[in-house]
């Protein structure tokens, strides 16, 4: 009941004229940036961070919520019309959605994606509103040693579930941890990896790293490989509307997608790749039109899109309740909080309760605004794709450089951004996933802090790290995640060998 009242207060605050204005601006900008090919929600938020440097925390967070959902809407439009998913979560949408667009059903694909995202987003945000406070209550009892285990688990799942190569994921994580080390140690003041550079003592800012590794890295990579290739926009005939048949085939996948996406967002399962894939697989198995899969089945758009949005809302639960981001996008939102000296975690609902309820209320509002705005405006967004590629990349790079400099008005941050841009290029060239690096950079210092706290409490006894039941369970899961793929591979190999023998 108290949750409900707080939520109503949140709505009252979010619906003030100025906050509503920031919400509208956020949905507009979020969609605008999200529609651009190759830009996922994480980069969209990172690029738009500078806009919020000077506005009040409540307005900024409202804008973020709007940008967050807006960028996801934009991303699905690009996947369907261009077949260039901006992030791993829209890969599945592109699969069937692009085929639908080719068959002249772009309108229905866009509509089921938008309405499905709205349905999933609304349900998931409602669950978030009513579960996050109780999870935060539980989380207060989570000790430093448990946090260490939780973070290690998040590292492991994100590194080994993303991308095709487990070891490359872990190397990416380690490089992120190295970046997180730079600067003065918080407890002893020891300058680590600064090599006498005064500016480096403050540590490496996360904003330049994030915009650089995505935007500058992508620009360098595309310039060196695919600069000649253009893209072909599929024409959209008619309006973004669904027939009665489309509704009938979409509503169950929306609900199933929500049911798959939300819980997988709450546990650190490595972002939106797994839930969208699972939802796609489920729909493919349950469909009454199996012959359409692979040729533009509407269920294959409705399910994964809903799963993607529900997953994004689910990821906010560990972020708000534990301060633990489980995806690149959640990591960027954590950075946004920290810009305002707000540290998400168990005490957040006590210390900044009003702010959080305003944020949750604005998630509902942003979601509704998007549905109302985007379906009629989809043609306008499509026009945006006609901007020639050279201009598009030039514009993105300018925004990234602006954000890096404006944060502290310092050229050191620009130097970091350029260096990280080159790292981003190399990571793309050599097939290393990027999300683990970002998570390592942001959570690394946090991990060290909790590790030391745990050992201080136990007076140096390392046994404390796995003394609690929760930490024991987490370490078991961790080993399964690390060894699982290897064992699975071995089993396959043995099976293959047996197969050869019997032949």
């Amino acid at each position, binding site marked *: 009941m108290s949750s409900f009242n707080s939520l109503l207060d949140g709505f009252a605050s979010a619906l003030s004229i100025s906050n509503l204005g920031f919400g509208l601006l956020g949905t507009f900008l979020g969609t605008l940036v999200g529609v651009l090919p190759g830009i996922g929600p994480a980069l969209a938020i990172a690029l738009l961070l500078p806009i919020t440097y000077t506005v009040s925390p409540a307005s900024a967070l409202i804008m973020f919520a709007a940008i967050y959902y807006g960028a996801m809407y934009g991303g699905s439009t690009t996947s369907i019309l261009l077949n260039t998913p901006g992030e791993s979560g829209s890969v599945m949408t592109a699969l069937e959605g692009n085929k639908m667009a080719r068959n002249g059903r772009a309108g229905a694909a866009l509509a089921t994606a938008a309405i499905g995202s709205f349905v999933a987003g609304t349900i998931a945000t409602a669950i978030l509103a009513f579960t996050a406070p109780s999870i935060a209550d539980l989380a207060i009892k989570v000790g430093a040693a448990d946090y260490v285990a939780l973070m290690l688990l998040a590292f492991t799942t994100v590194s080994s579930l993303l991308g095709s190569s487990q070891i490359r994921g872990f190397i990416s994580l380690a490089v992120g941890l190295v970046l997180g080390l730079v600067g003065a140690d918080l407890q002893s003041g020891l300058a680590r*990896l600064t090599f006498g550079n005064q500016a480096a003592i403050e540590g490496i800012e996360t904003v330049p790293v994030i915009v650089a590794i995505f935007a500058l890295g992508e620009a360098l990579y595309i310039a060196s490989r695919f600069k000649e290739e253009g893209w072909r926009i599929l024409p959209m005939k008619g309006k973004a509307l669904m027939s009665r048949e489309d509704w009938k085939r979409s509503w169950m996948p929306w609900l199933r997608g929500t049911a798959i996406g939300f819980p997988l967002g709450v546990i650190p399962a490595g972002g939106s790749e797994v839930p969208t894939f699972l939802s796609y697989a489920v729909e493919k198995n349950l469909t009454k039109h199996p012959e359409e899969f692979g040729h533009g089945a509407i269920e294959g758009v409705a399910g994964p899109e809903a799963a993607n949005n529900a997953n994004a809302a689910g990821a906010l639960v560990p972020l708000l309740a534990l301060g633990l981001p489980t995806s690149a996008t959640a990591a960027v939102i954590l950075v946004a909080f920290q810009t305002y000296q707000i540290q998400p975690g168990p005490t957040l609902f006590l210390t900044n309760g009003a702010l959080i309820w305003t944020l949750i209320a604005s998630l509902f509002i942003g979601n509704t605004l998007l549905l109302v705005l985007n379906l009629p405006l989809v043609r306008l967004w499509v026009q945006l794709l006609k901007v020639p590629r050279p201009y598009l990349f030039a514009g993105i790079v*300018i925004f990234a450089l602006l954000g890096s400099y404006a944060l502290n008005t310092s050229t050191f941050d620009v130097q970091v951004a350029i260096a990280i841009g080159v790292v981003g290029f190399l990571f793309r060239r050599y097939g290393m996933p990027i999300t683990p690096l970002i998570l390592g950079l942001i959570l690394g210092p946090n991990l060290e802090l909790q590790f030391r706290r745990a050992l201080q409490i136990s007076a140096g006894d390392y046994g404390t790290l796995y003394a609690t039941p929760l930490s024991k369970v987490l370490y078991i899961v961790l080993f399964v995640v690390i060894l699982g793929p290897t064992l699975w591979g071995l089993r396959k190999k043995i099976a293959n060998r047996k197969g050869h023998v019997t032949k």
Partner: protein
Amino acid sequence: MKLPQGAKSELTFVGSLFALGLLVFWDTARSEIPAFNLTVSPKVFPFGIALVLMTLCAILFIRILRGDIATPEGLEPGDPIDKSDYKTFSIVLASLFAYLLLIERAGFVVAALVTFFGITVAFGNKRHGRSIFFGAIFILLIYISFTKFLHVSLPAGILKGIL
């Protein structure tokens, strides 16, 4: 032993990450801890991370030698890997450096315009007049909306007084 195409450059890359691990190790080893009584020394984490990074790189190095080479983003496993076009790569990189050098000397508008132009050239735009024209409008719009409406300070540089 014949290495698959692209393996040599990947070995160099993984080797340099190994060197990064060595650098972290060396920097940690040579630094002196302030006279504090700490339960966990500030050296524990750097040493740990350096060792993990070096071990992982060594394993990957061996795997690459055995043929497990990386799939560049946007390609499918087994696709032929073209040589990177280092000419356009250099133009983009030079444009980024131009921004770094010019931002505090010439101001945001000039620096951003040079970078904008450089990147359009790298991406194969031939109509240079147009790109400067559109770039200038775009950058002026950004400059005015950020400084006037959002109160984010950006250096005016040599255009001070005009803007």
